[in-house]
């Protein structure tokens, strides 16, 4: 009796608390992107089925432990060695639940795996670029922002493949709202894993392989992520950020960034010319000076995006 009351109280408490609890307490992050939302739904389905099994097992366990504890003058233990129909039925029951789970997974899979078309309000990405992908479908209509994600110890470099001029950024990825963004992920050193929880699942970056994923942020905002595969000393520092901007702000950012990159490269060329001129003025080049020059060339001033990394 007391047990039943406790149980009822617990269930009532759960029903009250569950909707109040923040989403990430009981399920993965979601919100701005459809793939993350679908994963969230799929996860919740597995959670609810799991909860039923959990309650079934744990209540039977606790009930048995309380009800069938040895008492003075209590009943002898029933010498039951098995019950074939019962055993067959729970085997089939377990199998059926799993068939159901697998079916639900395949129903949700296309929505999570295949990128959808950009919304009508999305920006026009460059001249309908034709990309061949290995595993991931191209979004219908082809209007998508293509990003190459180059992971390296311990920073993310984002290259905008659709841009005519060189356009890239470090650490922070700027994208327009409502636009499908496909990511081609690779690594230039060890294995990393790209993960921005609110924008969907992980994609491992394995050296020698390319991986793919996508998102379409339908809400403007700033979404944080991190490297999810131990990649060395700086693994915990290898965080990233996706900034989703309104179309016009994104265009403005891209223009500015492109111009900054161009200016930085021109600056580099001028520096080289100045150095060469200075070397000629000084006459013969001494070995130490030559060494300094090479080192300097190896480490050009950081490209504009990097300064924004916290």
């Amino acid at each position, binding site marked *: 009796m007391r047990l039943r009351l406790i149980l009822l109280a617990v269930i009532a408490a759960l029903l009250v608390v569950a909707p109040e609890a923040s989403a990430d307490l009981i399920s993965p*992050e979601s919100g701005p992107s459809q793939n993350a939302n679908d994963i969230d739904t799929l996860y919740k389905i597995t959670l609810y089925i799991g909860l039923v099994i959990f309650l079934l097992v744990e209540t039977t366990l606790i009930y048995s432990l309380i009800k069938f504890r040895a008492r003075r003058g209590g009943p002898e233990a029933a010498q039951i060695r098995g019950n074939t129909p019962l055993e067959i039925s729970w085997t089939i029951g377990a199998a059926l639940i799993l068939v159901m789970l697998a079916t639900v997974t395949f129903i949700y899979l296309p929505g999570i*795996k295949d990128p959808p078309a950009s919304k009508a309000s999305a920006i026009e990405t460059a001249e309908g670029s034709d990309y061949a992908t290995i595993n991931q479908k191209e979004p219908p209509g082809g209007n998508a922002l293509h990003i190459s994600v180059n992971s390296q110890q311990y920073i993310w470099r984002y290259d905008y493949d659709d841009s005519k001029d060189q356009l890239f950024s470090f650490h922070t990825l700027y994208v327009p709202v409502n636009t499908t963004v496909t990511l081609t992920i690779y690594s230039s050193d060890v294995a990393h894993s790209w993960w921005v929880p609110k924008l969907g699942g992980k994609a491992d970056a394995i050296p020698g392989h390319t991986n793919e994923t996508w998102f379409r942020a339908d809400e403007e905002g700033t979404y944080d992520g991190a490297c999810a595969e131990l990649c060395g000393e700086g693994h915990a520092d290898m965080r990233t950020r996706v900034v989703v901007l309104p179309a016009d702000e994104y265009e403005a950012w891209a223009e500015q960034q492109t111009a900054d990159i161009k200016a930085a490269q021109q600056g580099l060329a001028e520096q080289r010319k100045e150095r060469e001129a200075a070397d000629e003025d000084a006459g013969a080049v001494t070995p130490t000076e030559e060494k300094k020059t090479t080192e300097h060339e190896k480490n050009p001033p950081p490209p504009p995006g990097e300064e924004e990394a916290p």
Partner: protein
Amino acid sequence: MEATTVTRPRPEIVMRAYREAPKGWLGWLSTTDHKRIGIMYFAAALVFFVVGGAEALLMRLQLAQSESTLIDAQTYNGLVTMHGTTMVFLFVIPILAGFANYMVPLMIGARDMAFPRLNALSFWLLVTGGIVFYTSLFFEPPTAGWTMYAPLSDNAYLPEGGVDAWILLIHLTGASTLIGAINLIATIHNMRTRGMGWGRMPLFVWTVLVFSYLIVLAYPAIAAAVTMLLTDRHFDTAFFDPIGGGDPMLWQHLFWFFGHPEVYIMILPAFGIISEVLPVFARKPIFGYKAVAASTVAIAFLSMLVWAHHMFATPTATVVLAFFMISSMVIAVPTGIKIFNWLATLWRGSIVFKTPLYFGAGMVGLFTIGGITGVQLAVFPADWQLHDSYFVVAHLHYVLFGGSVFGIFAGIYYWFPKMSGRMLSEGLGKLSFWLMFVGFNLTFLIQHSAGMSGMPRRVYQYPDTGDLELYNLLSTIGSFVLGIGVLVTLVNIVRSIRNGKIAGNDPWQGNTLEWFTQSPPPPNNFDVIPTVRSVEPMKDIRREVAKGAGQQAGSVAQPVA
């Protein structure tokens, strides 16, 4: 020659003359007695358990606050690697080997293992492996995680000797485990007592047999993989180096081809312990003996087919992911069968609440949670969010701590009286259980949420976003409660070795043959090997003794308590 007189010789160890073993430490160093080797396995494993636990608590201390600066990144990565490696290779496997060593010959009515000297070799290889690994503390411990993913573990990124120490550990403990497994297979196949057919073998022995076959199938893969890593590091091969035409994915496949069976290698004997403990304390036969034994074999078979569910986020074709999702789900069926059978074993029993039962029932409750999250992780699109996050850390600890370690503790409380002749304190035992149970859930339940809030595993710092800091603080508090709980059992063991209550031969009214002999058993185990007529031979013997009103009955040649 008359055909009737020809009997097939049965392989068994018959003692011709008893040579006094050397006394003191030399006796332990030179012993080939399966019981002494078993005890040494225990002692070594428990030492490594304390070390690995201390490493875990250091990590939890660091994570109690976000962006904490107590421990630096590379030290933290070292702790991650040492903790995982220690717990898997130097605690769980050795202590299970210890149980198997000590209990299998007693349970099957044999006088020793099939190859006693090989048995000693197997133990000393383990110790050597542990020492080689821990000497890396004095130069540069490995920092690539216990999974040692290439190419991070290659000499281009970690040229220090730590990774090499890890490779040598794998080779030494791997050889130790393989030799032990072959020994157990030979023992179980050939040395069962008269009347003990496959259908009368204790379930713990069944799980040890399957554990041993699984080791023989899985360990060669890791031995090959680490050898390839060794030559990559020192002899310019490029098995895992894409620049040289190798493939880091090969490492992941080889590692998990070993690594996933390894998970079941670590849990199956714990299942066996539970299948022994629950019937004894429920005073009931195990429910569905055949189903429990057969599901063990089924789990082992399927465990060889699920490895790539550790690689769902890698660039792999969807059809492959789907295969590994389904195979991983299928393995939940035989696992579920076991859980239902254990519940049915308790049902309508007359349950005696001793410490082994606490840990046994706790294991069933906690392992169920790990099993359910395991199925959730098998759903590969969901895994894209959960993979490599604290959700996985929580899941694996529910399986390995909630499952294996609680099972191991049930075994410690159940068999300590047989091994030492003395009882462990029930009061301390129950205190230890409740501290561990509460501490464990406080530590790991909330980690599911930390993972789903975006906290990757193996990070020494995390941003203070959402409730992450609260989750981690709770987890840290829980881990120290858990640590104290473990400590109480260790104190209990040390105290009871000298001061525990005298146990007698059969303190629990056990079902299996180890309770037939004295506690601790004499070097030859049994003066007369009993004949087995059912799956619960001790029940038969007790019945016979009772029938004979105090007279020793049938083949009972030793005093029966």
